[in-house]
């Protein structure tokens, strides 16, 4: 549905309750709507083909005495996004839940129940999502009056109440310390024999309070480095997405050469990320040789990054207004050389993996979801593309230099882990293609960094989406008065994909759990970026080795 016809439909439906305005660019549509029609409008947007991205809640009591709530929808075919905004009075932050119809919105709503103290009437699972088990009720850390470094007293004897297990099943506790999860999260898997009959997720254990920190402590220019550390793998993605959102909000136009360099960094990141995933996937099905070989092939890319940026990961390349380091002709040759080598090696790896019947056996038909359900859960990236959902931000909502580059978006309709595996493998070659094109088409000189004003205008909205290796990363930014974001909302792809995992697990075997969870390439730290402060983790005491050992044993006293 095109933008105009969408506006017409909505105007017909809601009349004066709805205010339509243009966003920062023509690709952003902003709809302000009365709270009572919020749910109906959201459902209408979904029905019109909008893909639910994420919700943004904000505490705006300081400046207008109300809480704000935004649902973001993407219209991928037509290349525009819709921000559906409403507000609620400070005393009664209540909204109608859209989660029953749009399951992908479930976590967003629960997140704001925790962090801002919102109420979403009709949410099917109004349980704690983000806050620690022992976080006191009634304190909502993202509210402005709560200090960023609040450390409430911790309690040992508190625990999350897991979902009721289906009749006759056993709960297999997977995580937070479990070899198939490389970061902490807890899955309570309900099994009947070896068949998974359900699953409850309790995550958000790597709470770092990044959003709150950046809203209260650092200024715009420091945030990219913090954003980069949201995720260990797709750091550039978050740095780029954050920078773009600031640039969009403040109306900064950056140099073309910098855009190309950003593109190259993003694609190099995808290259190493997909190879990393392939290795991890191999390990998760017990095939460590794939793990080792895939990482061996990946290693030159890491070295290349080191030469390009000064580090293997957390490149520190992207800042607001451009990039920090240039790609010199020597580095250009370096990149091309590495790409050539990697392309050959990945070619061999691809044949070895795709033709191996024993790998087929462990991936085909595993974690199957039909296309319609994948869309309902708003699955993203290779997880969606492996299930026949043809979306890719790079093509649908071009950013950086992607509008000038041509590439294919591989889509598989097998709907299972195998599909995601093939998609990722093929994307490696697309990435190589993109980097080569970018090096060719890049302006040969020009500034890297655009001067940015010391103080950016306040209360502007910026939205940016970046196709991370795992799918679309969304950053939503409201600029603030103190030269730092007033509200910065990060949604990593895993946040959305993870919500679909219990559905993927259903009726599969317990032995497939690692590879199904692994197939979304989960990044729990990305997902958990938002949690404010964990009392225990933030304790500043330095433990001596003997103390830690004693603590370890002490915990295990029966």
């Amino acid at each position: 549905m095109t933008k105009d016809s969408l506006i017409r439909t909505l105007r017909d439906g809601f009349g004066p309750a709805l205010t339509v305005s243009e966003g920062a660019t023509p690709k952003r549509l902003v709809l302000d709507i009365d709270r009572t029609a919020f749910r109906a409008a959201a459902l209408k947007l979904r029905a019109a083909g909008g893909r639910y991205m994420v919700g943004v809640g904000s505490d705006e009591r300081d400046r207008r005495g109300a809480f704000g709530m935004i649902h973001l929808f993407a219209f991928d075919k037509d290349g525009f996004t819709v921000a559906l905004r409403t507000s609620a009075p400070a005393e009664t932050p209540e909204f109608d839940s859209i989660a029953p119809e749009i399951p992908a919105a479930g976590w967003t709503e629960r997140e704001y129940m925790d962090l801002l103290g919102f109420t979403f009437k009709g949410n099917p699972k109004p349980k704690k999502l983000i806050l620690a088990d022992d976080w006191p009720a009634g304190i909502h850390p993202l509210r402005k009056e709560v200090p960023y470094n609040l450390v409430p007293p911790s309690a040992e004897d508190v625990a999350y109440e897991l979902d009721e297990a289906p009749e006759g099943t056993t709960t297999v506790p997977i995580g937070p310390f479990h070899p198939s999860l490389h970061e902490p999260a807890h899955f309570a898997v309900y099994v009947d024999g070896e068949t998974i009959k359900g699953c409850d997720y309790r995550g958000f254990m790597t709470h770092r309070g990044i959003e709150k920190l950046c809203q209260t402590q650092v200024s715009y220019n420091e945030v990219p480095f913090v954003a980069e550390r949201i995720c260990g793998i797709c750091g550039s993605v978050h740095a780029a997405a954050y920078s773009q959102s600031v640039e969009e909000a403040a109306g900064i136009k950056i140099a073309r050469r910098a855009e190309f360099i950003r593109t190259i960094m993003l694609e190099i990141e995808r290259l190493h990320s997909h190879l990393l995933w392939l290795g991890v996937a191999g390990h998760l099905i017990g095939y460590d040789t794939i793990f080792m070989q895939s990482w061996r092939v990946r290693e030159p890319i890491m070295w290349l990054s080191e030469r390009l940026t000064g580090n293997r990961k957390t490149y520190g390349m992207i800042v607001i207004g451009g990039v920090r380091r240039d790609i010199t002709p020597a580095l250009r040759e370096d990149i091309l050389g590495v790409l050539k080598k990697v392309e050959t090696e990945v070619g061999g790896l691809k044949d070895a993996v795709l033709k191996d019947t024993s790998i087929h056996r462990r991936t085909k038909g595993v974690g199957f979801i039909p296309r319609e359900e994948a869309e309902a859960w708003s699955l993203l990236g290779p997880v969606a593309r492996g299930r026949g959902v043809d979306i890719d931000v790079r093509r649908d909502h071009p950013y950086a230099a992607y509008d000038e580059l041509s590439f294919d978006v591989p889509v598989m309709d097998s709907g299972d882990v195998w599909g995601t595996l093939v998609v990722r493998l093929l994307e490696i070659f697309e990435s190589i293609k993109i980097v080569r094109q970018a090096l060719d088409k890049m302006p040969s000189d020009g500034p890297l960094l655009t001067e940015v004003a010391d103080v950016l205008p306040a209360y502007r909205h910026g939205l940016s989406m970046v196709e991370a290796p795992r799918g679309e990363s969304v950053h939503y930014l409201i600029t603030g008065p103190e030269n730092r974001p007033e509200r910065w909302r990060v949604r990593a792809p895993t946040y959305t994909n993870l919500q679909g995992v219990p559905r993927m697990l259903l009726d599969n075997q317990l032995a497939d759990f690692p590879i199904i969870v692994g197939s979304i390439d989960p990044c729990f730290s990305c997902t958990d970026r938002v949690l404010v402060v964990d009392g225990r983790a933030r304790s500043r005491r330095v433990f001596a080795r003997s103390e830690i050992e004693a603590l370890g044993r002490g915990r295990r006293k029966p």
Partner: protein
Amino acid sequence: MFTRPDLVIPVFAALAALAAAAVVTPLFAARRRAAGIVHFAFVAAACVLLAWAGLKAALGGGMDEAEFLRLGPIAVPILIDGLSGLFLAVIAVLSALSALYAIRYMDHYPDYGLGRFTAAFPVFILGMAALVTVDDLSLGFTLAWQLMTLSSFVLIRFERRKPENVRAAAKYLALMELAWLLVVGGGLVAGGSIGDSLHTLGGKLAGAGAGPLFAVYGLLLVGFGLKAGVFPLGQLWLPDAHSVAPSPVSALLSGVMLKTGIFGLLRVFFFMLPPGGNGFDAALWGLVLAAVGAATLFIGTIQSVKQSDAKRLLAFSSIGQIGYIVLGMGAALLLSGSGVPAVRSLAAVAILGALFHVLNHAAFKGLLFLTGGSLLYATGTKDLNRLGGLIKLMPVSAAVAGVASLSIAGMPPSSGFASKWTIITSSLLAGDASVLLVLFGIAALFTSVVTLACYVKFFGMAFTASGSEWTVKKEIREVPVLMLLPKLALAAVCIVQGLFPFLFFGLISSALANSRGFLLGEAFTPGGLDGMLSVSLLGIRVHDLFGPGLNAAVAPLVVLGLLAAALAAAVLLRRSAGSREVAVPTWLCGYQELSDKNRYRDHGMFAAFKNFFRWTGGRTSPKAGRRQGGRP
């Protein structure tokens, strides 16, 4: 009147004592403990007599021919030979121990009076004893069979307010009457009339055509097979009846009553034959029996693995173990007709194994059912999904259950190992005598691992893993001494059978040698098995069968010694670096603590295996868990 009053008089005295018990003990029913003791006293006295007579017949020589108990015109042939003696002894030992166990166990049923129980129990024993004593398929058989069937019907129906118990009992009664009809029908087809002993019947079969012979043996096989519980007949009644009966009765049903079916089959296929085997195709019927046995042991055991109700598991497993016995008998019958003397002696080995397994199964299955009863008594449930962790609360019962489980699984050096070894060895060594028999032997070997799985599960889920601390509300205590005593006695029997199998092989050889008219009698005459099978303190061996230097051997004491030495080495190694032990809680990835929710339940065990063999059937009672569970 009788040539062997030394055998007949004790037996009849015992039967009379049992009859008296049936009349006298119900009078005490109001005082439960007294009733139990009086009941035990009578039964024990009778059993001593039965055992004495039985062992005497088995060791010292039994009656050579059937003699007649005449009541006016009616004559009932009585035969107490070595084989009868052996079975009498088994019945006696297990009955006495069950009665002892019942003294305290019946406290478990405060809502039910003991009148019916104390009346029916002695009659049940009487019926079984009579059944292995009479030697016809008409009147005497009918009398004994009906006594046994009706009294056991009453016992199975003991908890008569539970509809499923009543249903199970009714099904049992109907099928046992059908079995009776089939057996009596078989006797009639064979041309028998009242007063014909089996030997006479066999004589009448001489010269009969293939058709009538087929009909006679077929009817008898189905009839006795129904009683013994062979596949697919056993599945019809056995699991239901055995699992609902009070545990001492279950122990008797499984430990000895099934063996009366085996006894019947033995009498039919090894004694009641046309003179000189004329017209009787031993190879064919042997193959049929072996096939039935292999199918029974395979399917019964796999069905047993699927059960979560402890007693139902034991009941299905009984079917499986009966399969081993029938396979042994089949192998014996099949190989008996061979022209090669070595193969014929394998037939003797096979029947030895089958009968040894009869003894072993009586001991360990009786013990297991008493264990099942103890679980029920102590926790109020027999659902393995709800049990677990009892080893700390019921250490003696756990140890005893461990012995029984190892025995039935056939781990060396246990009793099950010796008997299964004999059966499997004779099947495997038969070689080109019958390819099928070799395959059956491998099936038996395979099944013995399944049995192991079954009992690892039984023992593990009931005693070691966790569960009862959350699911059982009442305080769990070790069962009373009076219940432990019979279990300890049976455990001792199991251990002796395991470590000194030669004693029992000797007993069985002697019993068979003392049974006139036995098909394989020649093997058990002095010198018959010499040089082929040797039995000694160090074990048993089959050797020099097909030439010097080739043999099969097993010596439980050697295995025991070897394992003990290896264990000592392991202990030394474990202690070598002086590691200290620390108690810790169970590790569940750091977020959950062990609770009823994350406990792995019994029905999930071996899921892949159970799914693969779903086609073998074996109904798990859906209400198994809740039936007994409600009781506080």
